C-alpha cells in the first residue's frame, strides 16, 4: 500500500512539474530576424531540404532527376528531397510549420494557402530577385507571377500553369449533332440534352472528396459576381458573401449537375468518373490541364479517344455580371522558408529549376504547362497542350481554386455545403448561410 501511494505520488509530482514547465515555455522568441540573403557569394555548398507534394509515380522521377542534376553541377551541395502525396501534404506542412521545422523550399498552392505562410513570417520575400522587373522575373508569364504576390511583394516561384477546362470527346459531339462547342451556359444545357439522346452521359462528375464541385463553383462565382466584390469577399478580413450572384452560381451548378451529370456523384471519385470519359461512356469532364496527359496515347488512353478530343472553357451565362474572361486555375509554386539558413542556395536552386532546359523538360516529361515563357512548343508538347497555353494567354486572370483562395473555414463551409446541395439535402440559400457564418468567424480571427 505505501509503495502504491509512493508511486502515485511520484507520478502526480512529475505531471505537476511538467505542467508548470509547459506554462513557462511557449514564449517564442520575438524580435525581427534580419532580411534573408538571396544571392550566393563564393562557392555553393551545404544541404538543401525540399518537400513537395509530388509523390505520384507520374511526377516524382522528374523532381528527383532535377535534384540530382543540380547536385552533379554543384558537387558540394546535397539535396534532401522529400515527396509526399497531395492530401497528406496539407497536414505535413502544417505540422512542420507548427514545429518550426519547415524545409528550405516547400510547395504551396496559390491563394490564401500561400498567404498564410507570408502572414506568419515563414515565406522569404523574393521581390528583389524575382520581381516583374528583374531578369529572372521576366522569364515568367506575368499572370503566374501575380498569383504568388501578396501586398505587392513576390513570395513564391510558379512551377506550372494549370487551368480547368471541359474536355470533350469529339466523336460524341458529332454523333449528338453538336457542330461547335457551346458558347453560353444555356447552350451547354441544351447540348447535354442532345448528348443524352445519343446515349452518352453528358458530363462525368465524381465528387467524392468535394473539390471537383468546388472547382465548378470557382468558375461560376467568377462569372456571376462582379470582380471587385469577389476579391473583397475572398479576403478573410473583409469577406461577407452577400451578393446574390453567389446563389446564382450555386443554382447554375445544381441545374448543370441535374441536367448533365450522372446521379450519385458524391459516391464516385473523380478518377472513377474519369474512367467513364476515357472509355467513351461519358462525353465530357471538367478537368485540369495538368490531367490532359491522361487523354493522350502516351498517357494510356484508347485510340478512339486519344485522337479525338478537345477542350473548351465552361461557358458563362449570356447575362453574367462578373469577369467572363476569368479562367479557373492557378499555378502551383515553391516558396522559400524565411527562417532558413540556406535562403541564397535555395534561390539558386529555384533559378536552376526554372531555367529553359528544365522548363522544357517538365513539359515533355509530365505534360505540364510551364510558366516559363517560350518553354512550350510543338516539339515537346502535344497539340492540345499548345492550344491550352494560347487560351490561357487570353485569360484576364486566374480564378484561383475556391478551396485555397480564401480562409479555410469558408472553404470548409463551401465544400460541405455543396456536397449537401448535390445530394438534395440543402438549398443554395442554406449553403450561402453556412458560408456567411464561416466568413464572419474568419473575419473575427483575422481581425
Amino acid at each position, binding site marked *: 500500500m505505501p509503495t502504491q501511494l509512493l508511486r502515485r505520488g511520484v507520478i502526480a509530482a512529475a505531471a505537476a512539474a511538467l505542467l508548470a514547465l509547459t506554462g513557462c515555455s511557449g514564449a517564442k522568441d520575438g524580435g525581427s530576424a534580419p532580411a534573408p540573403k538571396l544571392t550566393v557569394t563564393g562557392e555553393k555548398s551545404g544541404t538543401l531540404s525540399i518537400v513537395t507534394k509530388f509523390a505520384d509515380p507520374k511526377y516524382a522521377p522528374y523532381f528527383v532527376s532535377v535534384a540530382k542534376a543540380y547536385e552533379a553541377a554543384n558537387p558540394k551541395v546535397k539535396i534532401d528531397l522529400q515527396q509526399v502525396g497531395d492530401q497528406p501534404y496539407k497536414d505535413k506542412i502544417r505540422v512542420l510549420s507548427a514545429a518550426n521545422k519547415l524545409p528550405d523550399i516547400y510547395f504551396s498552392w496559390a491563394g490564401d494557402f500561400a498567404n498564410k505562410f507570408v502572414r506568419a513570417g515563414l515565406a522569404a520575400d523574393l521581390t528583389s530577385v524575382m520581381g516583374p522587373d528583374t531578369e529572372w522575373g521576366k522569364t515568367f508569364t506575368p499572370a503566374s507571377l501575380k498569383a504568388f504576390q501578396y501586398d505587392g511583394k513576390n513570395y513564391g516561384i510558379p512551377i506550372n500553369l494549370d487551368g480547368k477546362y471541359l474536355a470533350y470527346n469529339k466523336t460524341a459531339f458529332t454523333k449528338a449533332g453538336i457542330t461547335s462547342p457551346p458558347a453560353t451556359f444555356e447552350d451547354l444545357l441544351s447540348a447535354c440534352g442532345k448528348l443524352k439522346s445519343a446515349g452518352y452521359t453528358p458530363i462525368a462528375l465524381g465528387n467524392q472528396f468535394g473539390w471537383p464541385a468546388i472547382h465548378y463553383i470557382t468558375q461560376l462565382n467568377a462569372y456571376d459576381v462582379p470582380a471587385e466584390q469577389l476579391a473583397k469577399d475572398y479576403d478573410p478580413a473583409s469577406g461577407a458573401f452577400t451578393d446574390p450572384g453567389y446563389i446564382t452560381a450555386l443554382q447554375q451548378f445544381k441545374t448543370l449537375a441535374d441536367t448533365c451529370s450522372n446521379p450519385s456523384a458524391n459516391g464516385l471519385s473523380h478518377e472513377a468518373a474519369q474512367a467513364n470519359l476515357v472509355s467513351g461512356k461519358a462525353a465530357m469532364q471538367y478537368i485540369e490541364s495538368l490531367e490532359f496527359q491522361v487523354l493522350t496515347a502516351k498517357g494510356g488512353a484508347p485510340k478512339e479517344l486519344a485522337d479525338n478530343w478537345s477542350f473548351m472553357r465552361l461557358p458563362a451565362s449570356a447575362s453574367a455580371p462578373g469577369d467572363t474572361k476569368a479562367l479557373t486555375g492557378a499555378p502551383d509554386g515553391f516558396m522559400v522558408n524565411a527562417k532558413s539558413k540556406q535562403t541564397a542556395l535555395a534561390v539558386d536552386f529555384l533559378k536552376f529549376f526554372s531555367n529553359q532546359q528544365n522548363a522544357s523538360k517538365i513539359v515533355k516529361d509530365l505534360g505540364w504547362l510551364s510558366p516559363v515563357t517560350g518553354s512550350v512548343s510543338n516539339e515537346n508538347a502535344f497539340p492540345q497542350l499548345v492550344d491550352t497555353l494560347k487560351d490561357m494567354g487570353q485569360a484576364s486572370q486566374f480564378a484561383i481554386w475556391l478551396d485555397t483562395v480564401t480562409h479555410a*473555414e469558408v472553404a470548409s463551409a463551401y465544400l460541405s455545403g455543396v456536397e449537401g446541395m448535390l445530394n438534395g439535402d440543402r438549398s443554395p440559400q442554406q449553403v450561402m448561410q453556412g458560408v456567411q457564418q464561416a466568413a464572419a468567424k474568419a473575419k473575427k480571427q483575422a481581425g
Partner: protein
Amino acid sequence: MTALLSRWRTLVWVAPAVALLVVFVYYPIVDNVRLSFFSWSAFEPTPVFVGIENYRVAFDDPVFWRALFNNTAYAVVSLVFQVGFSLVLAAVLEEFVHQRLRGILRTIYFIPATISITVAGILFSFLYNPQFGLVNRLLTAVGLESWNHAWLGEKSTAIWSIIAMSQWQSIGYTAVLFVVAIQRIPREYYEAVRVDGAGPVRTFFTITVPMVREMTTLLVILTVSGAFLVFNEVMVMTAGGPDNSSHVLNTWLYRNAFFEDDMGYAATIATVIFVITFIVAVVQLAVARRRRIEW
C-alpha cells in the same frame, strides 16, 4: 533498512516504464487539456487564451454532435456484432463444427483482421461504388434494384456503410479471442449440463456466457473505446463527407487541426474523446472487479 532498499529497488525497476508513460501519455493528455483553452493555429506566432470558448463552440457545433452520434452508433453496432454475434460464432465453432474444419474456419474468419485498415477501406470503396461496385450489382442481380444506393455518397448510408466494413474486419478477431476463452472452460460443466438434459441454446446461456465473462469484459472495453477512437476507416472511405455526415470525433478533430487551422478547437475535441473513453474504461473495470471468476 531492507524495507527501504526493497522499495527503492522497486522504484528503479518501475521508473523507465513510468517515465515513458509520463512523457508519451500523461504529459500529452495534460498539455492537450491546457491547449483546449487557447485559440491557436499552426501559423499564428502565439496562442491566445480564450477560456472555455472552445467548449462553448463545440456545444453549439452540429457537426460535433453528429460525430458523437456516429461514434455512439459505431459502439453500439460493434458491441452487437463484435461481442454478441462473435461469441455465438465462437461457441458454434467450438461445439458444432468438426475438429478438422475448425482450424480452417478460424483462419478464414481471422484473415480480414490481418488486412490493413486502409487497404480494407479502399477495397470496400470499390465494393460500394455506385456504378460498378459489387454491392449494387449483387442487389440488382437478386432483383432488389430499388435498394441500390451510392453507399458512401449519401448522408443516410455513409456512416453505416463504414460501420459495416468495420464489423466484417473485426468479427473474426474477437471470435478467435472468444474461442480461446471457451477452450478454458472445463469440459465437466458441459457434461454435467448435458446429463441434466439441457439443449444447446440453454447450455450456451447458462454455461458458456457466464464462464467467458472476463474475456467479454475485456472485449467490451476494447470495442467501445475502439469505436470512439476510430479514424482510418472513415478517413479513407469518405474523409467525413458527404456534407460532414460521416465524421467521427477523430476525423472532425483532424479536419479542424489540419484543414481549418484551429488547433485549440481540435484539442477540445481530443479532450472530449479522452473523457469519454476514460469514463467507459473506469465503469467497465469497476463492474468487472465485482465479477471475477474463481476457477
